[in-house]
Structure formats: structure tokens, C-alpha cells
């Protein structure tokens, strides 16, 4: 079944999808004939959440209202969620003053001569889960609860292998990238995998009609973001990545049960 209408919700990682769709539309070659995007990082929606006395986070009424209206009006066949993601980058991108390593099946250990603590994978996953619960999963739980169509949760792109590229394009990390240095690429890859595992596990356990969208092999080179998907940025992927992912999403979404109809 050909799905027509896509609704994208998210933060900065949503941009590549949005730009890719726009480019496809201009060329008359849109994978998704209709697509609409709700950027949650637009100024009008700031802040997205409020923090309670117990440090718990809650989406603001404005955000939930806008999401509800967006989905009701769009009546999408599928929903793409690319929310947050920097909870992982904040943990992984820069070199921590106290070196550490995390074991991961099939991944090499860092050079022991580098020193530092070896953090058990499950402990790092618990930390990732804590951060994810306050970030991406907070948005996801809400969208999953109100969605009338399958929700495809897209992780942030895999890490960029090149330290030089990151230092040349530190983006929002700015001077901090030079001050702290960039974490070893292998460590960043392991942390990205743990982050993805964590989100996927939460979605599998709690999701109503959500799917964690595993990335296709084409986006990887040695487990990192393939060079052709880089842009002048340390963490985000380019328009070509968005185009590839829109096609991937269409293929995956076409294989899952169709939407049950518009939201009430």
C-alpha cells in the first residue's frame, strides 16, 4: 500500500527530512506526496516543557495543543518523530575530563593506556535512559499517546568519525569542542549504539503504535555516518541523508498496518 501523508515532528534533526522533502517536491519527485513538519524548536514554542519541583519535566500546554492540532489537521498515514537527541551528544561528543570506556559487543575497547574508568554497558544504558526519559522519550510518549497513525521514531544520525571535521564545524558546541577535545570516535559510536538500544527498548516495551526506525545500512561507513551525508555541522546530517531516510521510512511504513483513520 502506498502511503501518502507524512507528518514530521521534532527538533533540529528534523531539518534534513524537511529540506529533503522540499527539494523532492520542487523536483516533482516526492517520496511522500504530502508532508508537513512541526518544528518544536521554533521560538514560538519555547520552552517546550516546564520542570516540576521534583525536576520532572512536562510538555507545556502550548506544545501539546500544537501537536494535537498538527496531527488532527494533517491526518497523516505515518508520523516521523525526530525529537531531541542532544542528550546523547552532550554525553558523547566531547572528551570528558575523566576518561572512560564502555564495553559493547563487537566493538573494540579503547587503548587501556589511556586510563580511566570502564563503565558497565548496563550502567551507561541506565544513564542514557534517565536522559532519554527527560528528553526524547518525553516527547515520544506524548506523540504515541495521541497519534492516530504509526509513529516512527528516528534516532539521531550515527556519529561522524572525523575529529577534524567536528573541530572545524563545532556548531553549537563552539569553543567547548576545542577546550575539551572530541571524544574518541569508537567511544562515540558505542554511546550512539547504547542510546539507540535504550530508545528502541523503551518503545518496544511501552509503545502503543510506535516503531523504532533502525537506520539502513546505506547511511553507514564502518558504523559511522557515511561521508556523503556530512554537512558543516558536528552532529546533524545533510539533505541527502534526509532523502534516503524518507525513502527508507516509506518502505518500512508501507510494511506496517495502515493508519486507522484520522484522530478524533
Amino acid at each position: 500500500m502506498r502511503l501518502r501523508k507524512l507528518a514530521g515532528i521534532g527538533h533540529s534533526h528534523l531539518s534534513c527530512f524537511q529540506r529533503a522533502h522540499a527539494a523532492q517536491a520542487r523536483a516533482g519527485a516526492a517520496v511522500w506526496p504530502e508532508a508537513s513538519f512541526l518544528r518544536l524548536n521554533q521560538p514560538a514554542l519555547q520552552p517546550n516543557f516546564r520542570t516540576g519541583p521534583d525536576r520532572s519535566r512536562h510538555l507545556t500546554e502550548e506544545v501539546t495543543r500544537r501537536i494535537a492540532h498538527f496531527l488532527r489537521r494533517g491526518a497523516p498515514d505515518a508520523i516521523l518523530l525526530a525529537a531531541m537527541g542532544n542528550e546523547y551528544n552532550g554525553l558523547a561528543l566531547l572528551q570528558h575530563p575523566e576518561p572512560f570506556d564502555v564495553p559493547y559487543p563487537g566493538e573494540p575497547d579503547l587503548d587501556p593506556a589511556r586510563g580511566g574508568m570502564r563503565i558497565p554497558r548496563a550502567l551507561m544504558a541506565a544513564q542514557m535512559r534517565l536522559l532519554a526519559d527527560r528528553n526524547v522519550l518525553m516527547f515520544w510518549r506524548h506523540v504515541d499517546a495521541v497519534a492516530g497513525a504509526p509513529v516512527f521514531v528516528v534516532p539521531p544520525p550515527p556519529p561522524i568519525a572525523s575529529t577534524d571535521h567536528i573541530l572545524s564545524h563545532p556548531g553549537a558546541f563552539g569553543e567547548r569542542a576545542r577546550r575539551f577535545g572530541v571524544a574518541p570516535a569508537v567511544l562515540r559510536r558505542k554511546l550512539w549504539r547504547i542510546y539507540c538500544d535504550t530508545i528502541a527498548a523503551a518503545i518496544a516495551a511501552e509503545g502503543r503504535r510506535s516503531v523504532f526506525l533502525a537506520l539502513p545500512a546505506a547511511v553507514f561507513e564502518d558504523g559511522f555516518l557515511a561521508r556523503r551525508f556530512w554537512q558543516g555541522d558536528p552532529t546533524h546530517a545533510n539533505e541527502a541523508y534526509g532523502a534516503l531516510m524518507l525513502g527508507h521510512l516509506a518502505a518500512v511504513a508501507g510494511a506496517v498496518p495502515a493508519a486507522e483513520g484520522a484522530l478524533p
Partner: protein
Amino acid sequence: MTATRTPYGALPDHCFWSRSHRGRTAAEIDPVVRGAFRISPATRIATAGSCFAQHIARHLREAGYTYLVTERAHPLISEPVARDWGYGVFTARFGNLYTARQLLQLVQRAYGDFAPVEDVWQAPDGSLIDPFRPNIQPGGFADRAEYDAARAAHFAAVREMVETCEVFVFTFGLTEAWISREDGAVFPLAPGVAGGDFDPGRHAFANFTAAEVAADFRAFAGLLRARNPGAKILMTVSPVPLIATARADESVIAATAYSKAALRVAAEELRATLPDCAYFPSYEIITGAHARGAYFAEDLREVRPEGVAHVMRLFMEHYTEGAAPPRAKRRAATEADSFAEQVQGALDVICDEELIDRPRRRSGARTGAAPAPAPGGGGGGRLGARTAAGRGPAA
């Protein structure tokens, strides 16, 4: 006519039951009399023992005293996660040490003087559980290498505690324990409760006497003082009743009375015979008649916060000196703190920045960003195929 002279005549009020209680509310009762020594904000304080010892640790830390933690999670790990994994609950990541024998064997193991035969349990999912701290690693250890590395780090942390603490606070919790028939190793929980399998051929029940408790603690104190002669010891007895007794012929109520009495007797003997070894009556503060049971929660077992507050108020009054440092100065800023503040703490800011669109806006290119909806209009900007080419950048 002169008053009759008795040995009680010159004693202070606290020696008399009536004068200790008359005109005082429960919260005003003070059975401490005087602290045996004083703790300054700089004194390195270690704690171990049963669950109740956690209150002392938490309070000292929150009050700005130097609570010694020798086994820390990496600074990337948030405190709630670290606590779930047993970091910072006590000085090292040993979990609850309910019995004096456990404490003694822990130090012996840390220094290589005892190597229990039954030193690892395997869970049905293949993960590994430390029989001597079965609850400190949710989900267990992934493999033997992780297990061995964690244990080596743990033993190093225990040694550091022994060698660097200035005050060691221990809360006696239980006399009942399960031990290995092979070598006497004491488990904090019966095999099968939080890991392992109970095997009557390998595991035996023990209910220590006051003399055994005193002997075990005395042996521990000997090990401690051999490496740290100046360390002071403060003992307490947990007021928390047994959750269950393994004695089928005995009520848990009577078993609790025995257990606490034996522990209290042992503490009294140790106080009288060990130098620089004091007893703090947290047990009496919580269970005394003055409290009329009100310091226990609905389950008659858990101690209510007001009971803990009473204990800690008297502890601070009798055992601390000097004002605690202001919160802002309690901890020297480290490079790791700076990292957390500058990188992780800035996450929300980073997430709210439109990292990609900005340069394209400057160049005047169309961004495809969703236009901000009209006030009150709700909904995000629509960028369907028909409209994608016709919309300008976000307002």
C-alpha cells in the same frame, strides 16, 4: 534532720527515668548525654551497616560534612542512577552489611585474607551476581571480566576506606544470617532471595550470639586500627525490626527482640573495652517508650522521617562541631563539574538552536522550515508537496 544519703543522690537528671521524661515531648527526649568525640566539617566520615546507616550518610552529606566516598560512579552518571547502582549509599559500594561477621569478612576479602569458595552466582539469564552484595548491580554483571573488574575496584575502595577514614560509623542490623557450610562465608541475604539458589547442603542458618558479634567486631576493629590507628568508631543499632526470621519455632517479634538485645549487649561490651569506640543510641531514640511507637510507619517497621530527624538532630548536636560549610563552598569545582555545566547542562540550549537552518537563512535560500503559526491558530506549519516550493523561511 539530714536527708538520707544514697549512691543516686548526686546523679544528674538523665540518670532518672522520671526526670528524663517529665515535661518533655517525644522530640525533646535526649538519651545521648554527651558525645564521645566531635566531628568537624573536615573530618572524613565513613559509614557502613544496615539500611538505617543510610540515613546517617545522607544527612551528613546534605549537611556539608565530609562524607567519605571511596567508590564513585563516573561523574557522567547522574546521582539517582548512581544510587540505584549502589554508589554513594555507603562509603563504598558494599550494600547493606547486616552483621558484624559480614563486615569483618569484607575487610578480610579486601586485603586478600579470605577468598570464599562460593564467590559468584549466575542468574538464569546468564548474568553474574555478587553473593556478597547481590543488589548493587541491577541486572547483574554482564560477564566475568566485568565482574572481576568491579570487584577489584570495590576491594580497592574498601581498603581506601579502612586506611583513610577518621571516623567509622557502623550500624548493627541483624544477628541472623546465612552462611556457607564450606568456609563460613556470610551472605547478606539468603541464597535464592536476590540471586543464587538455596541449597541446604551448602548453606546453613546462623543466629549470632552477643559474644560472637562482639568478637567479630573486635576483630574488625583490630584490622582497621592496624592500618589506621587513629580511626574512631561510632556504633549504632538499627531500630528497624527483622522483616522475617528463619527460626520456624519463633515469632519474628521475639526474634527481633533477641537480635536487637544481642546487638545492644555487644555494642555495650565493645564500648567498654575498645578505645575510641562509642555507642550512639539511635535504637533507643526510635524505640523508647517516650515515642509510644509513633516513630514507626504504618507497617510498624519503617522509621518515619520525624524519627530519623530526631536521631540526626541529636547526632549533630552531640557529635559535630563548627558550622557546616555553606552549600556553595561544600565542594571544590572540578574539571568534571565544569564539563557537566558547560556541555551537558547546556543541552536544552543546544536543542533549541536551529543549527542547520541558520546559515541558509543568511544566504537567503529557502529553508523549508515550518512557518510559525498565527497566534492562537495552533498547529505547525504545513509544508506539503504543493506548498513546499512556495513558502519562505520561518518568521
